């Protein structure tokens, strides 16, 4: 059919248009080096990737495997997280296998001009244990449309070949020496070493032969000090390679490295700002019913409003037509000239689409005297916002070319703290689903990738508006998480680090069983009280209050919990560890696509501190961010990694499949899970529930109102 055909064909079309965009002259493609950062083969260059681009890179040459997730955080700043597996690396006097995590930053200082080259600097392995630690300043200039040259100066590991005295010594003598690492546990920046010690030059040339094929020659200043004898045979600093791009989102590279090794690399590019089917593949919305001139005559017939039978008929018809749109009608207030429609949107990622469909559907069932349609978004039994639309605007603007902006200008979005008007029969609500789950465990030094796979049963039961019971039961089918033998060496209360004891003993496991009450204490305020088995490792009570005006980019919240550690069988019992934990949180959504959150309070191990979180938020629901927690636990007490930190990626499922869905997939990449700075993982935190029903985010996705 028309829609289904498009799922398969739109991809081909994208490929076609991209190919036709490249005409006679091959344009130089960007590139990623073997560490996944912007660069040549092993060396960096001074260019940036397209803003917001995510890339996943895997590169290999003898005994050296690197997997990198790289993200262009801003137009100039990119960050890369690399997980490397090096066999036969020399550490001190031993030859060992090493699993190494490193994080690198690349910042473009200047764009390329007519004469001026692009200029960038970078810090490699800023936080890890330092195998790849280095810094560089690099310049890149495009000479002809097919030829680009790069030259740079490196410090640290990038000063391994032809090193000379640090020119920064002219500024201060202390730049000339680079101390050995302090031998920290990872996580510390050790700013005093950056750009210190000897320096060396590196460089390279790229030649774009065809649209898809690029040749690269480079001179590497990395002499592989730890690997160059035991891991492979280092002979020469010159590398040659080719990069082949069969599709715009795929790069395959092959290279001959250091005079002895064949290397291979594959990179997959993801642009969160693109979509396979931007406007979605869901069915057409219900058309607006325009009232006839006769219906709009005077006097208006309002007799229906006094007739319970007619009102019941309208409510029934409204429920039917909204259900057909995947929208649940849970409340309805009918007045002669005004209808208030209370809906639950579990279907469309962007609430404006649900608001638009509800309003259009209501034009088909409401008597002609109703002039205003007010759509209230209900979230976990709380009214989160009310959008009031003039029915005449819906009739007039349905097909205007600027219909989305026009209707937004005429819509009134306000807080709706008042009580709901539940329709008889809309509660209780019960939902359940049975599906697979996967819990991967990355970065275990003994086995870098472990996972469990099984089935999970999810249930949600809402007996009345605002009351919600949740349960999640998991049964493992296959997996090896229980093979972890590594015992926690934590000196803190073991609130997270004995996860392997849970993995071994809990099957089946009750991951969540809670009752929660959601309520609106007043204007701009939202409340939650939860009790039960709140998360995998802890149970107890949790209470939260959020202040979030409907038009505001800013929100404040406070959460208090009293919890006990659950038994390792993850069923009903508790262990002998109880803690009061809670936070004060501030949330801010910048206009230009960034989200920041600060939590200050007490963590599960009883430590006090602060979590900082910064996310790049895309208007279509993609989010890429990082967080770090600093508490009064010292780096030594914390152990490996020094403090809790990680990277989060949230993918809206519907954006990938084209089908409407509010499901998102969030993954947290945490280099190491320790006990310091651990926060309770309770469901349904209020900010996450209500923020996308408020004006700033409704406005961002309002283009879907007429979809």
């Amino acid at each position, binding site marked *: *059919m*028309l*829609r*289904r*055909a*498009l*799922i*398969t*064909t*739109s991809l*081909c*079309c*994208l490929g076609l*248009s991209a190919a036709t965009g490249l005409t006679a002259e091959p344009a130089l493609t960007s590139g990623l080096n073997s560490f996944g950062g912007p660069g040549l083969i092993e060396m960096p260059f001074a260019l940036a990737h397209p803003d917001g681009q995510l890339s996943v890179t895997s590169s290999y040459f003898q005994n050296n495997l690197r997997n990198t997730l790289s993200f262009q955080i801003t137009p100039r700043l990119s960050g890369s997280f690399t997980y490397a597996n090096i066999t036969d690396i020399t550490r001190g006097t031993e030859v060992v296998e090493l699993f190494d995590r490193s994080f690198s930053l690349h910042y473009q200082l200047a764009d390329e001009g007519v004469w001026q080259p692009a200029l960038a600097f970078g810090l490699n392995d800023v936080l890890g244990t330092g195998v790849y630690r280095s810094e560089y300043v690099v310049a890149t200039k495009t000479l002809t449309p097919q030829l680009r040259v790069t030259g740079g100066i490196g410090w640290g590991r990038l000063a391994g070949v032809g090193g000379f005295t640090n020119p920064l010594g002219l500024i201060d003598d202390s730049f000339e020496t680079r101390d050995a690492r302090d031998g920290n546990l990872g996580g510390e920046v050790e700013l005093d070493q950056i750009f210190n010690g000897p320096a060396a030059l590196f460089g390279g040339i790229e030649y774009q032969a065809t649209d898809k094929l690029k040749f690269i020659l480079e001179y590497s200043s990395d002499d592989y000090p730890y690997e160059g004898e035991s891991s492979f045979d280092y002979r020469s600093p010159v590398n040659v390679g080719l990069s082949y791009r069969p599709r715009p989102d795929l790069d395959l590279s092959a290279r001959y490295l250091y005079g002895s090794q064949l290397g291979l690399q594959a990179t997959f590019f993801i*642009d969160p*700002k*693109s*979509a*396979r*089917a*931007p*406007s*979605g*593949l*869901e*069915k*057409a*919305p*219900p*058309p*607006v*019913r*325009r009232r006839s001139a006769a219906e709009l005559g005077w006097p208006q017939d309002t007799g229906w409003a006094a007739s319970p039978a007619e009102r019941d008929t309208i409510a029934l*018809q409204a429920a*039917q*037509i909204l259900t*057909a749109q995947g929208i649940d009608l849970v409340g309805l207030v009918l007045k002669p000239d005004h209808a208030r429609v209370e809906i639950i949107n579990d279907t469309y990622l*962007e609430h404006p689409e649900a608001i638009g469909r509800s309003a259009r559907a209501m034009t*088909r*069932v409401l008597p002609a005297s109703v002039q205003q349609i007010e759509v209230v978004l209900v979230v976990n039994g709380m009214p989160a916002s009310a959008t009031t639309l003039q029915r005449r605007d819906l*009739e007039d603007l*349905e*097909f*205007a*070319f*600027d*219909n*989305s*902006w026009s209707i937004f200008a005429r819509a009134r979005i306000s807080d709706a703290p008042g009580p709901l008007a539940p329709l008889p029969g809309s509660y209780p609500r019960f939902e359940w689903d049975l599906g697979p789950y996967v819990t991967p465990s990355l970065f275990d030094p003994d086995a870098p990738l472990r996972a469990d796979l099984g089935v999970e049963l999810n249930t949600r039961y809402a007996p009345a508006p605002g009351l919600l019971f949740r349960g999640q039961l998991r049964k493992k089918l296959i997996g090896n998480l229980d093979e972890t033998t590594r015992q926690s060496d934590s000196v803190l209360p073991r609130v997270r680090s004995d996860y392997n004891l849970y993995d071994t003993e809990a099957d089946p496991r009750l991951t969540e069983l809670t009752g929660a009450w959601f309520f609106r204490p007043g204007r701009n305020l939202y409340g939650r009280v939860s009790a039960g088995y709140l998360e995998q490792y802890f149970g107890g009570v949790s209470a939260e209050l959020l202040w979030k005006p409907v038009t505001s980019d800013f929100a404040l919240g406070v959460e208090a919990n009293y919890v006990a550690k659950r038994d390792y069988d993850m069923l009903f019992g508790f262990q002998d560890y109880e803690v009061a934990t809670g936070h004060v949180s501030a949330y801010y959504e910048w206009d230009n696509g960034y989200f920041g959150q600060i939590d200050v309070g007490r963590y599960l191990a009883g430590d006090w501190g602060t979590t900082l979180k910064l996310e790049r938020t*895309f*208007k*279509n629901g993609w989010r890429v961010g990082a967080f770090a927690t600093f508490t009064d636990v010292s780096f030594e007490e914390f152990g490996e990694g020094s403090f809790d930190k990680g990277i989060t990626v949230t993918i809206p499922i519907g954006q990938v499949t*084209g089908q409407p869905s509010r499901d998102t997939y969030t993954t947290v990449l945490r280099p190491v899970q320790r006990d310091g700075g651990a926060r309770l993982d309770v469901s349904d935190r209020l900010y996450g529930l209500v923020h996308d029903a408020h004006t700033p985010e409704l406005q*961002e*996705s309002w*283009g*879907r109102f*007429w*979809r």
Partner: protein
Amino acid sequence: MNMRSGLLKPLSLALLLIVSACARPAPPDLRATLTRAQIDAFEQPLILVELPQLGSSATLIPVARNGDVQTWSTADGVGLSYERGLPVATRGLGVDLMGADVTGSLAALNSGGGTTAYYPRFHSHLDGAQQIRYLSFQCQITGRRAETITLIGQRHAVQRIDETCHLPDARVENSYWRGIDGTLWRTKQWLSEDAGYLITERLRK
């Protein structure tokens, strides 16, 4: 109350509606599977649309009218809306036309000829970040000539009107096959880079 109750007609009609072409690169021609007898037996208006770039085609029936805009639907719920024969919205293509202003084109089509003045045309669509993007065309009638076309066994004497529309970085050619009474029996209109051309044929008035 079900706005698409019109689709729940006897099976033979459903079959007629469901017929569509999915395969690429050469979609089987939907026109070859339809006969005039089938269309005549079908007691309501019917259009056939084709999106060559998307490799799709389907037949549609009318489901709603708002002023001058008629909305049509395929059996699987894709909606196309035309203002007096010119597309102003698509819903469900994945690369939809969200809205359009075609008043300039309509006026030029109905002006009777002779003018080569430029007039604007506007389209809007959603990009991958869910933002509305506007296309602003400058258009001009570039040709009118008499033709005879045959739509599934039915011949129409028409005037073919060609319209050239300029974008800042591209040029597209729209065509209209207009009957003596003003009916647009066939049109070929460009929607957007992702959707390409939309061909619409009026099989039954």
